[in-house]
């Protein structure tokens, strides 16, 4: 046989460039694959296509102004990012937000987690070909985002959590919306359990695919549902409780083998636990209900200003707050009353000299929110795992350094070892079940 034939008979590997523009690459990640037929000999994952300099930008923004940037990190659960950042700053300031605000934060965080998990599983199942599951889950997410919209005024870029509390209280009809979201999500979960749990095709695609051992997961720095799917019981909400998590009841679902199916299952069960937490937080919110002002006590801003011009008001004038205009009832107890760290209420700004000065100082360059010198790390349980903010303050109104510990980065680092020796088709559920959010990973 001639050499030419023998060379032809030996299979040569093919290089395949998956991404950055590829339907399953969640934004922009690039996987370079060396293929033998459909089998992956080796691969290289390249990130950075969505890098937009979050950390550096933050060094040039005041503590107050950089909050909206955190929305854009994990854009599927922006409220958890808000909470994480704000808790870090509060830790540095030594500030304790009011009880009601803390419960609202928990409520919003858990709803975000549900939306995060729903999106992840929806995308994963869609990429495996189960398009119906995708739409069911996205519909459940819509219910949850309706709650967000009603509360925060936005569906994705919420910027709702503020240093010292939250921006505004829950909307008037939130209980109905929440009930609808909860029942809707539960119904969808039931459907999805029925469609996927024992589906032979889905099991074949996910069972034993992308297996991760406990030790490897830990050494890669995995956290969150992916780590728990390998059986390691680590949840920031239990390990280092923040907000009021230590007072709420929930379980940490654990997996066993750390494969795609376990990651799917852990996420599904975490949604259940999060819904439990939401219900508990909603119930607690009733206990610490704010004093609602009577109808006639409220004043429109113009009236209040006019009244304060006639004579100095004897007692504090309470305006209708700003978020939803005059329609919204004023409900105190959602922001701490530390004058230096919160935007002063408009009723103070418009009616008293002290309020005006505080407002001016808060927004003036070089003043504003100035945490003491020092460095602090605080982490919350994000949708993908431990979402940590490391903050160095030099005493000015801007962070000296802000570092984000994005859980996705550590997950993606292990992708290469997860798909080596497997088929091209295995990349899809593996990548999907890791839930790579490029906004957070590349920052």
């Amino acid at each position, binding site marked *: 046989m001639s050499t030419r034939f023998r060379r032809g008979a030996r299979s040569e590997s093919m290089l395949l460039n998956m991404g950055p523009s590829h339907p399953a690459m969640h934004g922009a990640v690039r996987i370079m694959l060396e293929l033998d037929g459909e089998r992956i000999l080796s691969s290289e994952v390249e990130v950075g296509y969505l890098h937009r300099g979050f950390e550096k930008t933050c060094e040039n923004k005041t503590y107050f102004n950089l909050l909206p940037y955190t929305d854009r990190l994990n854009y599927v659960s922006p409220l958890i990012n808000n909470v994480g950042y704000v808790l870090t700053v509060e830790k540095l300031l030594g500030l304790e937000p009011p009880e009601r605000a803390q419960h609202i934060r928990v409520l919003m965080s858990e709803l975000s987690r549900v939306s995060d998990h729903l999106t992840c599983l929806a995308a994963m199942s869609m990429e495996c070909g*189960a*398009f119906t599951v995708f739409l069911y889950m996205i519909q459940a997410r819509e219910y949850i985002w309706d709650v967000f919209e009603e509360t925060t005024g936005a569906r994705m870029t919420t910027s709702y959590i503020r240093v010292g509390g939250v921006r505004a209280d829950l909307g008037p009809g939130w209980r109905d919306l929440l009930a609808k979201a909860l029942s809707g999500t539960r119904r969808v979960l039931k459907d999805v359990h029925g*469609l996927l749990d024992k589906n032979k*095709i889905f099991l*074949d*695609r996910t069972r034993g695919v992308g297996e991760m051992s406990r030790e490897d997961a830990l050494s890669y720095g995995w956290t969150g549902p992916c780590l728990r799917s390998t059986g390691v019981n680590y949840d920031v909400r239990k390990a280092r409780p923040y907000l009021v998590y230590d007072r709420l009841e929930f379980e940490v679902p654990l997996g066993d083998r750390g494969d795609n199916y376990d990651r799917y299952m852990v996420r599904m069960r975490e949604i259940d636990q999060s819904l439990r937490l939401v219900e508990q937080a909603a119930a607690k919110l009733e206990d610490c209900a704010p004093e609602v002002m009577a109808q006639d006590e409220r004043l429109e801003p113009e009236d209040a200003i006019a009244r304060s011009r006639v004579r100095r008001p004897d007692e504090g004038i309470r305006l209708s707050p700003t978020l939803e205009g005059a329609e919204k009832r004023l409900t105190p107890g959602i922001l701490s009353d530390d004058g230096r760290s919160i935007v002063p209420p408009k009723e103070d700004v418009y009616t008293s000299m002290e309020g005006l000065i505080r407002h001016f100082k808060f927004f003036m360059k070089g003043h504003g929110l100035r945490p003491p010198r020092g460095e602090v790390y605080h982490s919350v349980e994000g949708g993908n795992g431990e979402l940590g903010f490391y903050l160095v303050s030099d005493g000015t109104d801007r962070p000296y350094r802000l570092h984000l510990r994005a859980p996705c980065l550590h997950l993606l680092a292990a992708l290469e070892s997860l798909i080596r020796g497997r088929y091209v*088709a295995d990349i899809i559920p593996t990548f999907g079940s890791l839930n790579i959010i490029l906004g957070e990973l590349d920052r």
Partner: protein
Amino acid sequence: MIEILILLAKIVGSLVWLLLLTLYLTWAERKVSAVMQDRIGANRASIRGLRLFGLFQPFADAIKMIFKEDFRPSFSRRLLHTLAPFLSFFFVAVTVSVMPFGDRIRIGGRTISLQVLDIDVGLLFVLAMLSLGIYGILLSGWASNNRFALLGGMRGAAQFLSYEVALGLALVGVVMVFPSLRLSEIVSAQGRLLFGFLPKWGVVLQPLGFFVFFIAALAETKRVPFDMPEGESEIIGFFTEYGGLKWGLFMFTDFMEIVIISCLTTTLFFGGWQVPWLGADGFVFPGGGTWALAPWAVTVFQVLAFNVKVAFFCWLQILIRWTYPRFRYDQLMDLGWKVLIPLGLLNIILTAAVLSV
């Protein structure tokens, strides 16, 4: 002369039937999936404000595709790249010519069979044409000169080859039971009754054969859960480098395959145009009742029965497509070679055993 005219009418008629059914299958697919997924589905296409549940949508789609740029990447092979979608389309469309739509009818002393071609190897012809269909996929994958398309083409070829075997084995049983390869004879044979009341349909005599055939046939249509060659989230598919009408042809071929597979299932396993207990003079029910019908009414019933059965199987395939996730390539091969082919062989042995007793 009149013979040629009749033949032409049959050709045009069956093609129009196939194309219209396929067009409306795209609409049905969108509507059925929408109902399954709590959506509304296509309902915007309208003529002068007349929407009719989006029934004009397929035409809007067709017009859109025709007027899109006929794009061909510079690195592709011109001839093969252009040829592939047409091959794909042709080999599927041509199979409709042997499908029996109804029994022979008599008009003015002339006997006309409601079938374009009543050839004696009808079944083999269908299988051969469906197998040739893979050239479209293989060529599109190769000529696109794109690695994703190449993977898609290869997957398509491998899948077709392995499922073609299972398909063929499943049909051997049918041929043994109704000893003919002529589709019209297979259908006629299914008009008889078993034990005096049960229609002697293929599915009654060949349940296992039907099972194997239907799964293999689903794989032939290369849709979820067997959409390996496409796998839009993995390798985008063999038509990665196609756009406009050429892509539309591939898509259309997919839907046409559904119709053809439904026709074949109906013809081989569900009695074709046979209506249970309907003879040439009307219904003769097993209980003893009769309902005499004029010959034209019998024909209408038969053609209607064929269409209803085809529509049912189209609907069933849509239902399956929107319920299941996709197989992995090797699992698909496992199913084909390790499950369906042994089952097909077992079916042949069982059938032979029963027949010889």
